[in-house]
Structure formats: structure tokens, C-alpha cells
């Protein structure tokens, strides 16, 4: 109820304001700039992934002796939670496009909650694996570096989406000018897609 009143207060006055010329001219450039940032992030992840795969395939068998076993059931439910958050974020943006403000707010809050649940699942897995950390060697280095880096991206994504939600409540975006929300959705999908790769190489390969 409180969210509803703040939401409407934030948009009163200019919810359907038409985009100005500067916005229209720079929108595509801003999207392209953000995509370049995502490509650079992809290169970073790719470097670590290929380093891990190289070390894994040049070692003396896999898994190395003494390495802790990964929990596939926990990883599967955790993955589905993160993939589900991608779907909820997609719904959030679609509802904004269709000018359903409350539905947008509900979906983005659900996305944030699911992201936090994913991070909690990661922490549970870390706690389980910490026991075998001493003898994990390359496995531990690869696993914790990549999943830790991804977890940091999810954490940043949660903050990003929270800021976007607060900005919408303050009326920063209108139903015709919402590039920030589009870019936030792109970032969250990117984080999901990176997890598809990490899930595959650590738990399925």
C-alpha cells in the first residue's frame, strides 16, 4: 500500500512525458555503450573460464584427489532460482512498457529477492566446501574465483536493481523514457547467462 502511494506520487506530473530530441539521439548510443561494457565483462569471464578448463584438462585426472565433492542438487535448485529471476525481470520490464506500474514494482522486488536467495545458496555451498578447502588446489582456485566473481556481479546487480526501483519511485523514469530500466534488465540477463556457462563447466562437465 505504501509502495503504491509513493509510486503514484513519484510519477504524478509527467508519467507520459514525450521523449525530447536529445534523448532520442543518444538512446541508441547509450545502449551500445552498455553492450560494450557487457562484452568487456564477458572477456573477463572468458579468460578465467578458459584458464580453468586448460588447467583441468592438463592435470593428472579429474577430480583431483582430496577435492571436495560439489552438491549437484543444491546447485540445480540454486540455478533455477537465478534463471527464474531472469524471467521475473523480463516481466518487470514488459509491465513497465505496458504502463502497469504496480506490477512492475512487484516483479522487480521478486527479482531482487530471488537474487538474494541465489547468493544465500552460494554461501551455503561455500560453507560446505570450506571444510575441504585446504586440499582443493586448482579446483578450489578455479571454483572460488569464478563463482566468487559471478556472485559479486549478482550482488552488484541486486544493488543496481534496488537503485532502479528507488529511481522509479522518485519519478526518474517515465513510461516513454526508460533506457536505464532496459539496461538494468540486460545486465541481469547477462548475469544469468554467465551462470549457465559456470553451472555447466563445474557441475555438468
Amino acid at each position, binding site marked *: 500500500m505504501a509502495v503504491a502511494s509513493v509510486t503514484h506520487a513519484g510519477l504524478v506530473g509527467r508519467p507520459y512525458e514525450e521523449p525530447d530530441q536529445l534523448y532520442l539521439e543518444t538512446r*541508441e548510443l547509450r*545502449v*551500445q555503450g552498455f*553492450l560494450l561494457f557487457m562484452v568487456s565483462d564477458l572477456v573477463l569471464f572468458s579468460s578465467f573460464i578458459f584458464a580453468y578448463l586448460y588447467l583441468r584438462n592438463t592435470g593428472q585426472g*579429474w*577430480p583431483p584427489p582430496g*577435492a571436495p*565433492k*560439489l*552438491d*549437484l*542438487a*543444491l*546447485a*540445480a*535448485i540454486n*540455478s*533455477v*532460482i537465478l*534463471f*527464474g529471476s*531472469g*524471467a521475473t525481470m*523480463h516481466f518487470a520490464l*514488459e509491465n513497465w512498457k505496458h504502463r502497469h506500474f504496480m506490477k512492475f514494482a512487484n516483479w522487480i522486488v521478486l527479482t531482487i529477492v530471488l537474487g538474494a536467495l541465489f547468493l544465500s545458496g552460494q554461501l551455503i555451498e561455500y560453507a560446505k566446501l570450506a571444510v575441504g578447502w585446504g586440499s582443493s588446489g586448482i*579446483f578450489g582456485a578455479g571454483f572460488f574465483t569464478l563463482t566468487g566473481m559471478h556472485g559479486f556481479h549478482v550482488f552488484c546487480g541486486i544493488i543496481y536493481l534496488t537503485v532502479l526501483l528507488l529511481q522509479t519511485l522518485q519519478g526518474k523514469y517515465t513510461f516513454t523514457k526508460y533506457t536505464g530500466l*532496459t539496461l538494468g*534488465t*540486460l545486465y541481469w*540477463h*547477462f548475469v*544469468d*547467462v554467465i*551462470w*549457465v556457462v559456470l*553451472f*555447466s563447466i*563445474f*557441475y*555438468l*562437465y
Partner: protein
Amino acid sequence: MAGISATVAHVERIFALVLGIVVFFVAAIALKNDWNSKGLENHVFKLMLALLALGAFLAILASVNVLAGKGVEI
């Protein structure tokens, strides 16, 4: 203790299977609805949704033990 762990893992697998199927179909339907959309970011969205559906499909296979890596606890 081992029995409790096995039960927890069993419940996790069932949840992963059910939610995985839901997410897979939601992503597939969203992809179908967006299929004709134009613009750079919409093409990226379509790619992302396709990969999301693939991820959900892999999670479904993992939850029923069809796919499992070498160093995992089944």
C-alpha cells in the same frame, strides 16, 4: 544424518525439476512473444532468453541425474 541429507537433496531435486520446467516454458513463451521485435537491445534480449531456456533445460536434466559432472555428489 546421512538420511536427512539424502532427503534434503531429494526435496531440492524435486523443486529444481518443477521450477526448472516452469522457467523453461516461461522463457520459451517470452522468446516466442518477442520474436518479431526489432532493435539492437531486443535482439540481445532474444539471445539472452534463449540461453535462459537452455539453462533451465540443463537444470532439469541435472535434477533427474541425466547430466552430472565428474566431481559432483549425486
